[in-house]
């Protein structure tokens, strides 16, 4: 008889302790989401004193029939796919390479993460200088030293080369994140598993497939999911490097701040959220169905 009220008190205490976090989540996540959804149905001026006009699904209709949006969506999918796969594969390869003792291991590990911890803007400027048409080192090497081109290619002024470069930039910039995560999990794999596989006559690839991959799977899923979300919304790297690659982040920014169309920008972010949400749910289901999740 005495226990029951005590349990009740525990729940209350739990609720009390959770209250600040729940309050903050409601304030910082739920409220903006609901407000964003609301704005997406209005034609809204940036002046809050002017009444917004309710236009129903007009913003959504406009976006979904806009060729520029659909093109951006395609570019963004391709960009996300290539950079997620690229940075994960490179990160994993480097982690496997570093998961053994060698001289200067510690210092090399810290050097490898340099691109990840440096601020975007400094890296972007370094790249822009490297590829500068007049005094960039890339053009100096390819044109003046190796004579690969007659004239310096306009790297960031052509859609094709710009796209390739922003993808390479992202892979180079973000692979250390995968590297750190994989290195941590690789170090927990028991070496006897590899020894056993070796006794069974497994090749290097088979050892990777049978021992390494299942062991790192939970981390792999997290790395891929998070990286996909981050890359899908990527704005600053691409925006600062070139104006030739119109990803959705840029489309959204221009709608919101170049055209000051807040309603339309809000509906773009709702659409993006739905797309990303669906993709991730599907991805997780697929992985779970394969029994690897």
């Amino acid at each position, binding site marked *: 008889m005495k226990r029951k009220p005590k349990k009740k008190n525990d729940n209350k205490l739990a609720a009390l302790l959770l209250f600040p976090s729940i309050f903050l989540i409601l304030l910082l996540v739920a409220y903006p989401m609901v407000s964003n959804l609301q704005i997406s149905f209005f034609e809204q001026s*940036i002046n*809050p*004193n002017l009444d917004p006009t309710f236009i129903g699904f007009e913003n959504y209709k406009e976006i979904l029939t806009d060729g520029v949006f659909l093109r951006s969506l395609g570019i963004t999918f391709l960009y996300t796919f290539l950079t997620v796969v690229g940075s994960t594969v490179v990160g994993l390869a480097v982690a496997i390479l570093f998961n053994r003792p060698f001289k200067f291991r510690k210092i090399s590990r810290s050097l490898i993460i340099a691109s990840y911890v440096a601020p975007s803007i400094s890296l972007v400027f370094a790249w822009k200088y490297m590829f500068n048409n007049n005094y960039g080192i890339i053009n100096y090497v390819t044109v003046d030293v190796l004579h690969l081109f007659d004239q310096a290619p*306009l790297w960031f002024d052509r859609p094709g080369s710009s796209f390739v470069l922003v993808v390479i930039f992202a892979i180079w910039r973000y692979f250390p994140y995968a590297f750190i995560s994989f290195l941590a999990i690789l170090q927990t794999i028991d070496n006897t598993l590899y020894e056993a596989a070796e006794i069974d006559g497994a090749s290097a690839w088979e050892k990777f497939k049978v021992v390494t991959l299942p062991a790192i799977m939970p981390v792999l899923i997290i790395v891929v999911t998070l990286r996909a979300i981050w890359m899908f919304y990527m704005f600053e790297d691409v925006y600062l490097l070139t*104006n030739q690659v119109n990803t959705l982040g840029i489309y959204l920014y*221009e709608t919101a*701040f*170049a055209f000051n169309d807040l309603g339309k920008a809000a509906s773009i972010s709702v659409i993006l959220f739905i797309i990303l949400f669906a993709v991730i749910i599907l991805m997780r289901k697929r992985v779970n169905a394969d029994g690897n999740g």
Partner: protein
Amino acid sequence: MNRKYLSFFSILLIVLLAACGGEEAGDTENVTIEFMHSSVEQERLAVITELIEKFQDENPTITVEQVPVEEDAYNTKVVTLASAGQLPEIVEVGQDYAKVMDKDELIDKEVVQAVIEEAGADNFYEGALKLLATEDGKSYTGLPISGWVQGIWYNKKMLESQGFEEPENWEQVMEVAKAFTDTAGKKYGIAIPTVEGGFSEQVFSQFALSNNANVLNADGELAINTPEMKEALQYYQELAQYTMPGSNDTTEVNDAFMNESVPMAIYSTYILPGVFDQGKAENIGFAIPTNETKAVYGSASALTVTSGLEDAQKEAAQQFLTFMAQPENMTKWVLMSPGGAQPVSDLVTENEEYQSNEVVNAFGDLSTEIASSFNDIQVFGLVDGKNYLKMGDITSSGEIPKMINGVTVGGQSVDIAIEGAEASLKEILK
């Protein structure tokens, strides 16, 4: 027990809400106003702080709080603050963004008008006032406080070395540019912007307007696809053959002129402080793109008062603006960047502190020449003295820079680029 929890919750809620609450009502007599500007550098902040302290000494019931915002993030910040209803009472704006704000009714034009009238509209350069005039021409979007002009800067010695003098028209500019270009040696004739950004629009506008081509016609309708505009774009495309390859922005243009890989560059007066630092003030000349007419591009930086303020705030903002319009305070503002920022009022040019500034003095007659060029200012969207509001949207859309970048770097033809820009702009102005 329940009561205890309830009171604890209530206290927590009150504390949290109070933390989110922001400004307090405070004393009824004391007024606090915010002043948003883009001078984030230490030395400039010091000047503005000094001006504010002086104002507060004269008006003890008013407190002015600074909101310095970096230039790159400025417009984004205005949009977010405005949407949140948190726009500072006084905002520093350029003429283009003033139009965007005016369109969304974010400016209290009555206050601005009153301040300009009190300071004496005649004292301001006509060129500067023209840039800030509202569409109906009856009022202004801001109090002009400083400005800059843009034209062709040339290296006198370099030009002389090949027997050239100041280029006086399109043809001569092309001739000089051609003569100095040696792509193999990475030397070019003129540094002009080709980037898909505002700088390209500003420079191209000088060639278009000097050929009597404006983006809007006298009725305020889109008129970008005209023979005059095509001719200007054709000329710009040709001139771009003699500039550095790729998308050139302010950095590339400035660098090229300063390291003498070009004898000419189109840039704002903000090129002058660097030239002064190099000790080459006497070697620089200023020419204006001229064909059918002369066209100087210029920008006026203004202080404006936001709309929807309470009376006390409005009054305080007006007082601060009136204070800033005084010659000695305007002079201090202009001299935050001597050479770069130009006066927009005769009262500053005549001010002793301005005249005795070493940078201003170093350029001698050039300073006067630049100041007088304010009267040759022409900008897109300003037709027959009418400053069309929709030009703000056209500039914000970035369609004109896209067109320029297309023909100079993207290998597009002039016709296709103009037609593309026309189609997109029609859609935007719909």
